[in-house]
């Protein structure tokens, strides 16, 4: 078994009295890209928010490179090398495009990504660097959100529904760029409702259903029928 970069151990999550995740055991090897699929409300976003530290947990419920991080604050987790591209992009409206990218780089981890590398990857962002981020199209905003996460030079990047609300042609562009973005050494968790897209860039997949893992395996070995069953919970 190759080195694990991330693992969860009986991970629960609650919103008040509502329990969103039930004892999840996940594992992600270094350099791997893993897809998390599942219907609305299955707990995918909750899982990413837990890993990123926006929901606190038992310390040993989440391990990152062997270190328990479940109880750390989100800003500490960012510093250890996990970045989240949040659902709905969530750029900072009072910041310009460039400022959104710069603030992503404030954890100052060493690595290949810099402002000029992001502009080389998404040239349109350099043209619009001084505009407020709210004036960009949805696809361009997604580029900023991805660039903002990359600027911290994370070892693990979490993508939450990056195709949501975007035109199909933009989605295709982003997924074409994704293997280059993730590149060498970086690991990724991709949460996606578009199963075909998710499986096309991943090596392993977990399917969540009502807060539990209903299916896991290598992308090549799982059949469509198994996915439908795990996704909808029906025979």
């Amino acid at each position, binding site marked *: 078994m190759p080195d694990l970069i991330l693992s969860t151990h009986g991970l629960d999550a609650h919103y008040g009295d509502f329990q969103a995740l039930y004892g999840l055991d996940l594992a992600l090897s270094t350099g791997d890209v893993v897809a998390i699929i599942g219907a609305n409300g299955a707990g995918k976003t909750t899982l990413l928010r837990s890993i*990123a*530290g*926006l929901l606190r947990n038992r310390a040993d419920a989440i391990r990152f490179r062997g270190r328990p991080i479940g109880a750390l*604050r*989100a*800003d500490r987790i*960012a*510093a250890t090398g996990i*970045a*989240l591209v*949040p659902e709905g992009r*969530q750029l*900072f*409206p*009072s*910041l*310009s495009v460039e*400022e959104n990218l*710069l*603030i*992503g780089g*404030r*954890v100052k981890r060493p690595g290949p990504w810099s402002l000029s590398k992001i502009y080389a990857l998404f040239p349109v962002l350099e043209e619009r660097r001084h505009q*407020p981020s*709210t004036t960009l199209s949805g696809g361009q905003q997604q580029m900023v959100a991805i660039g*903002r996460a990359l600027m*911290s030079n994370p070892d693990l990047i979490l993508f939450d529904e990056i195709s949501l609300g975007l035109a199909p042609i933009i989605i295709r562009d982003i997924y074409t760029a994704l293997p280059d973005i993730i590149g060498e050494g970086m690991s990724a968790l991709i949460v996606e409702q578009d199963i075909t897209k998710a499986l096309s860039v991943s090596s392993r997949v977990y399917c969540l259903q009502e807060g539990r893992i209903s299916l896991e395996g290598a992308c090549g070995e799982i059949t469509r029928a198994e996915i439908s069953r795990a996704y909808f919970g029906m025979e």
Partner: protein
Amino acid sequence: MEWINAVVQGTLLGGLYALFAAGLSLIFGVMRLVNIAHGDLIVLAAYLGLTTTVMLGVHPLAALLLVVPAMAGIGYALQRVVLNQTLGGDILPPLLVTFGLSVILQNALLEGYTADPQKMNAGSLETASFALGPLTLGALPVLTFAVAVGVIGGLQWLFYRTPLGRAFRATSDNQDIAQLMGLNKAHVFGLAMALALAVTAIAGIFLGIRTSFDPSIGGGRLIFGFEAVIIGGLGNLWGTLAGGVILGVAQTVGAVINPGWQLLAGHIVFLVILAIRPNGLFPRVSG
């Protein structure tokens, strides 16, 4: 000529009101916190300045070197230890806690300094004046106004041109996502309050040179500060300066019409602007 003089003197007075208001504007802009104790913190700064000048025998402006860092430290500690616990979805807890803080500050100052009015002695600065055409301008009001412009300009630069300002704006926009950028919001809020109280220290010293003060006057300074912030538009620093000037001019012009109308005229102008432009004259615009 009397009218022109009133407008000019009112504009200069507005500089002091802008100093009262800048700290309020800043902390509301960053963390949506309405600080009821702001006026009492201004008075606290004035008393700290008084103690410094009396004990060390220095000029009140030199006391700024000690009072500004002291107030900034108080601000950081206050935010981390007390006010951060009150922030959340509900606006009521911070209002109640800062109201309680206001009561505590007033009584502590009363205990420590008695109710006797005090004043800081700035020597010749208080009486110096110079002629500008037919008008006579006091050196202290001109200096106060210049400092207010400098403070607002400095805050504006800090907010829009520095990494710290970027962190303030990002945290104000979205606290969760700011945490994901490695920003500890408790620390960012602490820094914002430290900065706000550093400005409050400047306001308190200039207040204490200009007029006599006692522990009970904080509430009135809070009202002037609030009115300046709201006239100018929440979260807009240059708007806050404009709001202070409008309030100051309204008061001095009101006083020319009838000496008893000074404060009333300011409040009326505030209410009229609030009725016509509920978001203030210059609502927040981005960068």
